């Protein structure tokens, strides 16, 4: 054993309650901040606002589809609703909320003072925020001088040639293009920052093989951002050139190709799913071991499987295009590559199960959501394998079966882990615990709502209900299923409202958390809750993957087993 240097981890001598400041001072503080924790929080709050907006759009669509021949909203509005819902949820909820947690947690977990480039960090946030605002400004400014349409209505993957100027006059599509482009710039900026932070800012002893798996997964996610968001940026530049200066990239009359846009979009679009799900895996990697009271099973296998997912996910994009007619060669390749990606994903699921196995499981709300995630992600993966078989896909492509499949991933896996992360890290961020009783209500309500909506959504898909239909005839046999799906949406909304109430109430009345309420092992729990602006009074140094375990059990340090 090397020499032991006593280091005081909690040496915050600042007064407990600084004098109350004026509203403008507080506002100025947040607007000009370069602190990774504040920027992370702004990302999260901004994403939550858009989550509410995107969720409302979903509820409106479900009301419209609940009964046949319904005219609750107009067809034009319906087109805008599904476009805005998809774009919002992917670019302005999923990405910012995950980057928000990354921003907040990564420097704390690797024992750093801040991100590598604090100014770039603030820039990335504000440019993304501007993108989201621009997207919604289209409701006001989209009609512009033309008086044609308001919000974008071309669908979230905006297939050519629908986006050409002749078919989408006015400015609504331009708002979509610019908003997505700006969010892409912000995303790449944050990804650069995360890679530079993880590689260059680790505290002494924090080798790559000792980094918390959350940091590992964010590192991989960020590398994926470079190679997947950039193609989207390139495609958006081409689309803007087509729309503004009359070039012919996707103009079929001049020999351009609409299929090229599909390829470019899905080269981004499919890895994007993994960019969203890897941070969810990252949360699971931290939360499941803590509440199983065991170290994660198979740390190297987990990191390696994530790298595998990163690489394989770059070669599966055209499984979104089986119905285009790519020929047997391409169909076979993309079927097989899509199936292969389930291998590293399966490794992860087995490792989580092995972590649970024999552990003293504590069923906190965070753990309940994590266990829900495990089951639901498995089912989502199974329908994914079904859809990867190209003949099966020819039948069900662009049906509600596909919608049910990817919402199972996005809601059942990613959103469940995001909720879990909120229950787990809320005490660190605010210094107060979330109410467990309300949390359990939130979990069960949301679980029931989720399964009502998305289990039953598979069935109208199998019965032939296409996605994006405005309404349907009563004799199709889809009515009962749609009714169940829509009522599930109401239950989910109730659960989410309970969650929002819990967050607000606990901020003022929650039990005081203390530095380490979960008896956890990673560095963020060694500093106060909320952490001071400088994170750590003394730069920590670590000797194993679980520095706080070493601290609490000096007689049996983790390093002996690694």
């Amino acid at each position, binding site marked *: 054993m*090397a*020499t*032991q*240097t*006593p*280091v*005081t*981890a*909690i040496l915050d001598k600042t007064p407990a309650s600084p004098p109350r400041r004026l509203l403008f001072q507080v506002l100025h503080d947040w607007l000009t901040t370069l602190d990774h924790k504040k920027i992370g929080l702004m990302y999260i709050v901004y994403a939550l606002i858009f989550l509410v907006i995107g969720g409302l759009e979903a509820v409106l669509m479900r009301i419209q589809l609940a009964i046949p021949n319904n005219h609750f909203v107009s067809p034009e509005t319906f087109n805008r609703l599904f476009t805005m819902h998809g774009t919002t949820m992917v670019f302005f909820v999923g990405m910012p909320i995950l980057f928000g947690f990354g921003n907040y947690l990564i420097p704390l977990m690797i024992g750093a003072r801040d991100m*590598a*480039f604090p100014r770039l960090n603030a820039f990335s946030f504000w440019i993304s925020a501007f993108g989201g605002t621009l997207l919604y400004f289209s409701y006001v400014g989209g009609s512009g001088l033309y008086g044609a349409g308001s919000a974008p209505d071309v669908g979230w993957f905006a297939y050519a040639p629908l986006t050409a100027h002749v078919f989408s006059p006015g400015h609504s599509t331009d708002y979509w293009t610019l908003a997505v482009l700006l969010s892409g710039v912000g995303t*790449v900026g944050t*990804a*650069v920052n995360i*890679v*530079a*932070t993880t*590689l*260059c*800012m*680790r505290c*002494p*002893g924090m080798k790559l093989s000792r980094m918390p798996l959350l940091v590992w997964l964010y590192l991989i996610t*960020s590398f994926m*951002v*470079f*190679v*997947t968001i*950039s*193609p989207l*940026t*390139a495609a958006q*530049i*081409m689309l803007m*050139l087509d729309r503004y*200066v*009359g*070039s*012919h*990239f996707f103009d079929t009359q001049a*020999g*351009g*190709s609409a299929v*090229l846009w599909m390829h*470019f979009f899905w*080269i981004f679009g499919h890895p994007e799913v993994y960019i969203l799900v890897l941070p969810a895996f990252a949360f699971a990697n931290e939360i499941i071991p803590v509440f199983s009271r065991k170290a994660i099973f198979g740390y190297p296998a987990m990191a390696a499987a994530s790298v595998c997912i990163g690489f394989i996910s770059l070669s599966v994009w055209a499984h979104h295009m089986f119905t285009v007619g790519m020929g047997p060669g391409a169909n076979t390749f993309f079927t097989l590559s899509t199936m292969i990606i389930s291998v590293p994903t399966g490794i992860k699921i087995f490792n989580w199960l092995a972590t649970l196995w024999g552990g003293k499981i504590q069923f906190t709300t965070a753990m309940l959501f994590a266990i829900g995630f495990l089951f639901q992600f498995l089912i989502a993966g199974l329908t994914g394998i079904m859809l990867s078989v190209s003949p099966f896909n020819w039948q069900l492509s662009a049906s509600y079966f596909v919608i049910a499949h990817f919402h199972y991933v996005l809601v059942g896996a990613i959103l469940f882990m995001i909720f879990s992360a909120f229950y787990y890290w809320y005490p660190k961020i605010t210094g107060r615990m979330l109410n467990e009783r309300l949390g359990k209500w939130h979990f069960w309500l949301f679980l029931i709502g989720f399964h009502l909506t998305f289990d039953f959504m598979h069935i109208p898909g199998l019965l032939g209900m296409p996605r994006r239909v405005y309404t349907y005839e009563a004799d199709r046999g889809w009515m009962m299923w749609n009714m169940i799906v829509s009522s599930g949406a109401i239950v989910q909304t109730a659960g989410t409202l309970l969650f929002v109430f819990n967050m607000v109430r606990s901020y003022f009345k929650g039990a005081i958390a*203390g*530095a*380490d309420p979960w008896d956890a092992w990673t560095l963020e729990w*060694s500093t106060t809750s909320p952490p001071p602006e400088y994170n750590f009074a003394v730069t*920590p*140094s*670590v*000797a194993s993957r679980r*520095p706080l375990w*070493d*601290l*609490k059990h*000096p007689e049996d340090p983790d*390093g002996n087993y690694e």
Partner: protein
Amino acid sequence: MSETAVIPHSPTEVWKLPSRGIVAMACLILAESAIFIIFVVAYVFYIGKSVSGPTPREVLELPIFSSICLLSSSLTVHFAVSALHDSKRGMCSLWLGLTVLLGGIFLAATAREWYQLIYHDGLTIKTNLFGTTYYSLVGLHATHVVVGLFMLSLALLFSLRGGLTSNHTERLEVLSLYWHFVDAVWIVVFLVVYVLGR
């Protein structure tokens, strides 16, 4: 919970991490490469698919001289970094100046080529698929040259005012990495547009 953290730590081990500037530039280059790859793919995909003229064979000429200028500017910027590393500040300014000059010549040659194409051959971005892909790919590269030249000129300005010392070697190195990338992309663009596409 204990108030004092006793964290095991071996002082003999030297803790060395990579430079964040270089890591960040490498990441940026990775992201930019992905953008260029998409434009190159679009270019290659549309070779010979234009429904009307002019074709590349009719109007494009090999820009040998300007390519040599741009590629040799990679060498000069490297010499500038080495000179700064050895605290030869005068030499550094000289090499930086030469880099800016060579980059400027390249840009001027591109401008002349475009002028020729637009006013004499009647090829604009609207004309056909060749025009669309040619102007966007070469224009994207030229945009990167402009950004690089701006940054290099700033460095030159600092160097002439005596503000650039050997402490700044790493920063200049980061900038030179970007410039090497811009030059490397030109090799690809040259091969695709002027050799493969003609």
